[in-house]
């Protein structure tokens, strides 16, 4: 219940003004604690975080529809385990960004390091630059859209979700893939074991078009993309497939 008079003004003001956290002055632990105190609520406040300077585990474990803006480059595991929040990194992200994300949106304006979106179950991860090796490793339902290219072993052992690569993919794409779907616009240096190209049907063009729109990627023609998926030969070990391991 809102108060009256001066109290009401104050509360209204705090709703409008973003929380500004300078990580040179506040520890990551204190920041994350403040964010976790809102977990389980419907709080939609804005959080402005400055000077991440490669610090680890910035804004992990959020479980509320917060809007978090991070100005600068982050270190390991930024946005990990995210649920409901919209997290934007105005810089590059270190290894394991958005790992194990459950829902919400993590957007990286720069490049992402190794294993972006590892094991993530849901939500949308948008990388506006390039992603490094093992992007989407063991992804379990997340959607990942990369405007640039991805490094080797993209979508390694990916189980569910969609990985969209608007640039090129390095060697070993989709190795030991389960049911995740991969769309690539550029060149694929090489497919991993049990990953094959599959035809693009109308339903796939629709799906891809929706993902690109959701990620805010414009000016791309879905007809330029190819689709890759699992040949489903490695689900169970078969001695005839030993060479593929």
């Amino acid at each position, binding site marked *: 219940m809102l108060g009256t008079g001066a109290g009401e003004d104050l509360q209204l003001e705090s709703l409008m003004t973003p929380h500004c956290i300078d990580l040179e002055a506040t520890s990551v632990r204190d920041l994350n604690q403040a964010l976790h105190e809102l977990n389980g609520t419907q709080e939609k406040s804005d959080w402005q975080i400055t000077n991440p300077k*490669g610090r680890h585990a910035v804004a992990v474990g959020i479980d509320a529809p917060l809007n978090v803006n991070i100005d600068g*480059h982050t270190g390991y595991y930024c946005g990990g385990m995210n649920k409901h929040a919209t997290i934007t990194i105005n810089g*590059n992200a270190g290894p394991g960004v958005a790992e194990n994300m459950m829902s919400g949106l993590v957007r990286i304006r720069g490049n992402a390091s190794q294993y972006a979106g590892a094991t993530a179950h849901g939500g949308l991860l948008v990388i506006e630059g390039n992603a490094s090796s093992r992007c989407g490793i063991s992804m379990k339902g997340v959607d990942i859209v990369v405007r640039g290219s991805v*490094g080797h072993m993209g979508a390694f052992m990916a189980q569910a979700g969609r990985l969209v690569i608007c640039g090129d993919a390095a060697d070993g794409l989709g190795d030991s893939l389960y049911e995740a779907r991969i769309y690539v616009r550029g060149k694929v240096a090489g497919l991993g074991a049990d990953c094959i190209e599959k035809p693009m049907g109308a339903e796939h063009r629709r799906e891809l078009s929706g993902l690109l729109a959701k990620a805010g990627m414009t000016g791309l023609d879905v007809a330029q993309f190819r689709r890759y998926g699992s040949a489903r030969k490695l689900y169970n070990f078969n001695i005839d497939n030993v060479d593929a391991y």
Partner: protein
Amino acid sequence: MCGIVGLFAKSKAIEAGLGAHLSNMLIEMTERGPDSAGVAVYRRPASPGGVKLTVLAPAASYAWDELKKALIEQVSQQVEMEIHGNHAVLILHADAAGIYDWFAAHFPELHINSSGVSIEIYKDKGLPENVLNRFEVKQFTGTHALGHSRMATESNVTIQHSHPFSTGQDLCLVHNGSLSNHNRLREKLQKQGIIFRTDNDSEVAAGYLMHRMWQGDSLDEALESALENLDGFFTFAIGTRDGFAVLRDPVACKPAIMAETAEWVAMASEYRAIAVLPGADSAECWEPAPAKIYSWSH
């Protein structure tokens, strides 16, 4: 896990503050390696005909004067010596090839950390900040430098197990990772005359590069063959007389980031070690690709 950092100055201002900048970088890598730390700094080149050695004694109370006296009598009429605790930097006028044998015969308790024209290697056990303070690295000027913070995973924590490792004249190696074929490779290299002082895997990588270059390989050729013959995980930074090189194994699990501005080129295990450099916010940053040699030189 370990932390590695490298800094290459492109301006006189960075050269003047090289030790301070490198120290700030290495202190950021403390959590990656709190056991021991070391640096290789390229500075104050010896005059033509001179050889610069960094010598490590078993204790800070070492009788350095006796070493100097013996050197003057038997090796070099001119000897410059600067003492930093249990390390001494010597400049001699002698044939570099014979110096190792002379030390082994007369002062076997001393270890030559480095030899060359401008390289100096300092290393010790303890937190990076304490090790850097011990040698007053923050005061050093220089053209380029490498640093390492060690978290031992496969062998003992001693000064001898610490990085950087010398790989030849003005050459050194720092390593983040672990090698799985180092025992067999060490045996092979020992038969070729390479001497190892520890059971450390990174020392084998250093010995391997040294051996390849003795065989006539260029640094790039030696690194190319390292990709074939070293089995395991590695991000290497290799210091050379004029600059440094970076190489990651083909799987590239061990992190590495590089950054460049008009003033400097830097490499580190993590961006937070680069964030402390002037102008880092606007630096161009990228992750070195697997199995690709990157190198800079003056």
